């Protein structure tokens, strides 16, 4: 990382930390919290989908499992952090359940398997826990948004930081090799199965923690709600719109998604789905690297142009 980048990141974190202190409006803090929640989900999806090249269509299952078990443990008297951690581990257990058989096969089996797992859990949880899950009266009486905001902020920093360390490690190098050319990776001694399972476990663990944070945050919801497929597809869309396989991509994607959705929701209500659907198709077709690639291309074009202009200028001065 360059020095400019370090300063920029430090500044960004400082702004995020100070936000609830400076801005006291709950609706703004809530919006920022949602952005952070989606950064968590999108960045965790990106570890497996963006860096390892394995399409997970059931991210909501891991998110939902984290929420379900955290809510259960926390409300039955566990303290918050162990409950959230347990939610993350439960998500990993289910991830391995589907990943171990599916990754032995090439092709779409993993995508289908995760989609099936998520749908089965969505329906089952809906049937078994059909009552709305509300916080206890004593929690409601003392409910504050700010600690929830910080919880998500810490989690988002943890996931982004881990991703950064991961992609600069030997493990991350192996993951990217598996994404690019699985057979070539194998022939270099990179075990594709091992790397996919590790990436999946990390990704599911973070999705589970995010679910736990959601259970801590949300006052009342149907237990099946965090299992609903839109969590998966929204995260995926953010990753692709922002830039898959980059650290900043999911962050930009999440910010863009939440802000645009809020703006559209004011005027068009559910129409934002159509807008994002079209945008997603356009990005996949014309901009496979998302906003991050668009930015890089623009920079490169700009650099070329100013270089050409620089040459021209120097000609003029020699003419003089």
């Amino acid at each position, binding site marked *: 990382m360059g020095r400019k980048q370090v300063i920029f990141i430090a500044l960004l974190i400082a702004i995020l930390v100070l936000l609830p202190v400076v801005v006291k409006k709950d609706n703004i803090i809530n919006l920022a919290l949602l952005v952070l929640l989606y950064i968590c989900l999108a960045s965790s999806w990106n570890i497996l989908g963006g860096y390892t090249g394995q399409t997970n269509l059931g991210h909501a299952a891991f998110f939902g499992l984290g929420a379900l078990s955290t809510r259960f443990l926390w409300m039955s008297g566990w303290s918050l952090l162990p409950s959230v951690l347990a939610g993350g581990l439960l998500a990993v257990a289910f991830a391995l359940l589907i990943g171990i058989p599916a990754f032995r096969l090439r092709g779409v089996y993993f995508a289908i398997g995760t989609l099936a797992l998520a749908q089965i859990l969505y329906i089952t949880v809906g049937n078994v826990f059909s009552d709305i899950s509300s916080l206890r009266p004593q929690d409601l009486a003392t409910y504050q948004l700010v600690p929830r905001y910080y919880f998500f902020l810490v989690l988002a920093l943890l996931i982004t930081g881990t991703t950064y360390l991961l992609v600069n490690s*030997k493990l991350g*190098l*192996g993951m*990217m*090799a598996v*994404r*690019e*050319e699985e*057979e*070539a*990776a*194998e*022939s*270099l*001694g*990179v*075990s594709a199965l091992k790397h996919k399972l590790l990436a999946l476990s990390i990704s599911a663990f973070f999705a589970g923690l995010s679910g736990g944070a959601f259970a801590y945050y949300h006052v009342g919801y149907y237990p099946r709600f965090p299992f609903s497929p839109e969590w998966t597809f929204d995260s995926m869309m953010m990753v692709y719109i922002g830039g898959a*396989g980059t650290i900043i991509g999911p962050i930009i994607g999440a910010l863009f998604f939440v802000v645009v959705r809020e703006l559209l929701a004011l005027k068009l209500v559910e129409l934002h789905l159509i807008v994002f659907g079209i945008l997603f198709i356009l990005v996949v077709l014309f901009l496979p690297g998302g906003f991050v690639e668009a930015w890089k291309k623009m920079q490169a074009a700009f650099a070329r142009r100013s270089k050409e202009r620089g040459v021209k200028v120097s000609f003029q001065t020699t003419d003089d």
Partner: protein
Amino acid sequence: MLKLSGINAAYKDLQVLWDVSIQVDEGELVALVGSNGAGKTTTLRVISGLLKPASGSISFQDHSLGKESAHRIVELGISQVPEGGKIFTGMSVLENLELGAFVARARKDKDQTLKWVYEIFPRLEERKNQRAGTLSGGERQMLAIGRALMSKPKLLLLDEPSFGLAPILVEQIFEMITEINRQGVTVLLVEQNVRAALELAHRAYVIENGRIVGQGTGEDLLSFESVRRAYLG
């Protein structure tokens, strides 16, 4: 060093290799030549563990490879340059090379091996921070070979290194292969470019329809009437 005996191999129901036996001794440069679809690549895939043979045995320096996984075989010292290179186009040249030194045995000497690879292919050092996808065809092939060398192989398997390259580049690549062999790496070279391969190799095998139909020194095979007619025109 490497010995295949009576290998039969198939993709699902389609048998591709029939009773293939090959031997490569330490320090040799051996070529396996034949036309398209003869089973050359399949033979390499069997050696590097990407395809398990239906029957027959493979041994490498007293290890039996029949049941070993692909990454374990790399660990033992066999490295393959796949057909077309199969470099990681989205990653930098340096990252590609680092991936070559992925196994523990190669990892500890990574920096030293990298220097050696840069000596053989100076072009790779010039381009080390460039995305591999931006390299030319010849540079890609160099990168693929360099990447394989990063694992410090005792035996290097080369699948069609001349594929898609201009004749002048083929000559260069083949010179580099000779040089790598001279520096102590045993080489098994698979080629459709029969004449060039036979001129280069100490010994060669000819494979046809999945069966070994001839073997001998490169010069011998070049003068064989059947080989001349079939491959050299």
